[in-house]
Every structure is written in structure tokens, then in C-alpha cells.
């Protein structure tokens, strides 16, 4: 199709979809209304299981299997990226020499920020059931923290700090234990991912039953997974492929 034809087809379709959306939006309850039936069930349910952060309760307790699926998606994407970015057979790789010139202040900033982000990340993971945050958010912060080293200095320092196999294993461990805890619930009460740990008292560090445990597992998985993902992309960015692309007629 010519690019004009494509655009015409799209505009036709988009106009129709815009009409559909407008029709639907006009029929929805007013923005900011008080009508939230699921919320009215979810909040008391979270309180019953002594989980102060209701979003965490929904994520890890009430609709835990969604999150199990989500963590499996993270695992799948990390495996997928690793498989897609594996060095091809006819591609020999070159690493650039390690002399990267950085400003002193950037280096210093990186090294100073590293411990700070790690502490913040761990805190966000640990308190995910009582305050905003949780395993996912904390995990991402932790993974970003590691990559401040890139900002701070050389790729080599980063490479030393993250042997990919260990992070791979950490990620698989997090995702696997999530499933194991779910199966434990199945064995104990007959329901997958049942909240089998005593729920404790509302708002405390030890409350919410399985919620903080799952938060830690997700934190482990997401931080390791994100580090592995970024490592693959970093490696791509600094690697040259030699004779990588297959010659094709017509290609440029």
C-alpha cells in the first residue's frame, strides 16, 4: 500500500474508533464519581487481612494470580531478550577499549548515589504492604541503582558487579518461589496463592501475611530481571558486530 493509502485507511478507521470511544465515554459514570463497587469490596477485604496498602493487597492477595502471571511475563521477556540478543554465530564481537572520559563530578555523583538508591530501593520493597511501593517499584529502583555505575565510570566496573548468571538465577528464584508459595497455599487450604501466613496487625511491618513475602520475591525477581535486561542492551550498545549483517541485494 502507498503511504497515502495507508494513511487514508488509518484515518477512516481512527475516525470510527473515535466515534466508538466517544459513545462509550459518554455512557460511563461521571469522572470522579463515588460509584466503585469493586473498591467497596476490596478495601474491607484488605483490612480483614491487615494490609494497609490496599493496592498491594489487591495485587498480591486478592488478585494474586494476575501478579503471578505478570511476574511470569517478566521472566518470559528476560528469556526472550536474552535469546534474541544472543551473539549470532557468524558475528564475532569486539569490545571497545575501556578509556571512557567522564567528568569527575559525574563519577562522584554516581558513586554517592549508588548506596542511596540501594537503600531507598530496599526500603520501598520492604514496606510495600504498608506504604506506597512494593516489590516491583523497589526492584526497578534497585536495578537503576546498579546502572548508576555506568554513569559513574566504566563499563568494566559495572560488568564486574553484575555477573549475569547470578542475576539470572536470582530472577528465576524470585519467580519460582512465587509459584512455590502459591502451591503452599494450595497444599494448606486448597486454594492457590491463599494467604496462609498469620496476617498480624494492621499497619505493622509484620502484617498482611504473604503480601510482604511476595513483595520481597517480586523485588528480587524484578531487580535481577531488569539488571539482566539492561545488561543485554548495554552489551549490544558497546559491542560491534564484525561481518554481522548478511549481505542482501537491495539492502543498504
Amino acid at each position, binding site marked *: 500500500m502507498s503511504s497515502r493509502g495507508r494513511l487514508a485507511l488509518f484515518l477512516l478507521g481512527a475516525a470510527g474508533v473515535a466515534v466508538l470511544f466517544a459513545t462509550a465515554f459518554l455512557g460511563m459514570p461521571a*469522572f*470522579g464519581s463515588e460509584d466503585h463497587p469493586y473498591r467497596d469490596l476490596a478495601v474491607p477485604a484488605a483490612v480483614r487481612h491487615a494490609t494497609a*496498602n490496599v*493496592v*498491594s493487597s489487591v495485587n498480591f492477595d486478592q488478585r494474586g494470580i494476575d501478579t503471578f502471571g505478570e511476574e511470569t511475563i517478566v521472566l518470559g521477556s528476560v528469556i526472550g531478550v536474552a535469546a534474541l540478543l544472543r551473539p549470532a554465530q557468524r558475528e564475532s564481537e569486539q569490545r571497545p577499549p575501556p578509556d571512557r572520559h567522564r567528568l569527575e563530578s559525574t563519577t562522584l555523583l554516581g558513586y554517592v548515589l549508588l548506596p542511596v538508591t540501594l537503600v531507598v530501593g530496599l526500603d*520501598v520493597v520492604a514496606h510495600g504492604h504498608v506504604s*506506597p*511501593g*512494593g516489590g*516491583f*517499584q523497589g526492584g*526497578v*529502583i534497585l*536495578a*537503576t541503582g546498579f*546502572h548508576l555505575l555506568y554513569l559513574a565510570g566504566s563499563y568494566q566496573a559495572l560488568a564486574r558487579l553484575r555477573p549475569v548468571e547470578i542475576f539470572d538465577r536470582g530472577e528465576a528464584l524470585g519467580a519460582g518461589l512465587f509459584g512455590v508459595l502459591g502451591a503452599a497455599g494450595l497444599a494448606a487450604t486448597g486454594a492457590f496463592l491463599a494467604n496462609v501466613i498469620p496476617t498480624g496487625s494492621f499497619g505493622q511491618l509484620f502484617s498482611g501475611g504473604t503480601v510482604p513475602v511476595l513483595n520481597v520475591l517480586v523485588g528480587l525477581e524484578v531487580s535481577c530481571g*531488569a539488571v539482566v*535486561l*539492561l545488561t543485554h*542492551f*548495554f552489551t*549490544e*550498545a558497546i*559491542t*560491534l*558486530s564484525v561481518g*554481522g*549483517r548478511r549481505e542482501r541485494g537491495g539492502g543498504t
Partner: protein
Amino acid sequence: MTPLIVMSLALVAVLGTAVVLTNEPERQAVTLSLFGLSLTVLFVVLQGPDVALSQLGVGAAVVPLMVMLAIRRMRRDQEREADGRGEAGE
């Protein structure tokens, strides 16, 4: 609807459009990051701190970083190829 919500929604709409209209991939990584930040602001305003926190990490930092790295890889290959052609021509 408070003015704050109106404004942050408008900001999100404008920056989202800007990301799509940025044709140059390098610049797009930057606009994407700004768009991620505007979403973070919107989520804070809409009383979703959990969502805002992960949007901050993912949308404003990790994803733009990956985009930048992917583009850098492609650029390097292209430059190398251009060099190779230059050498071959000599």
C-alpha cells in the same frame, strides 16, 4: 475536576503527541522520558502513588534508557558500515 488534573491531563496529551511526532529516534528517547514524567505527575494527582512510583522508574528511566541503547547499537553498525565502505573505496 480540579485545575491540577485538567492541566496534568493536558500535559500528558501534548507530550504523548510530541513523542509520536518526534521522528528522530535519539530525540524520541528524551521526549519519551519527559512523557513518562508527565504521566507520573498525573498519577500522583489522581491519587495513585503506587502507580506513580513504578511509572517513574519504568516510564521515565528504564524504557527510555533501553530505547537509547538500542538506537546507539544501530547507529554504531551504520557508522561502521559507512567506514567500511569508505575503506573499500580507497
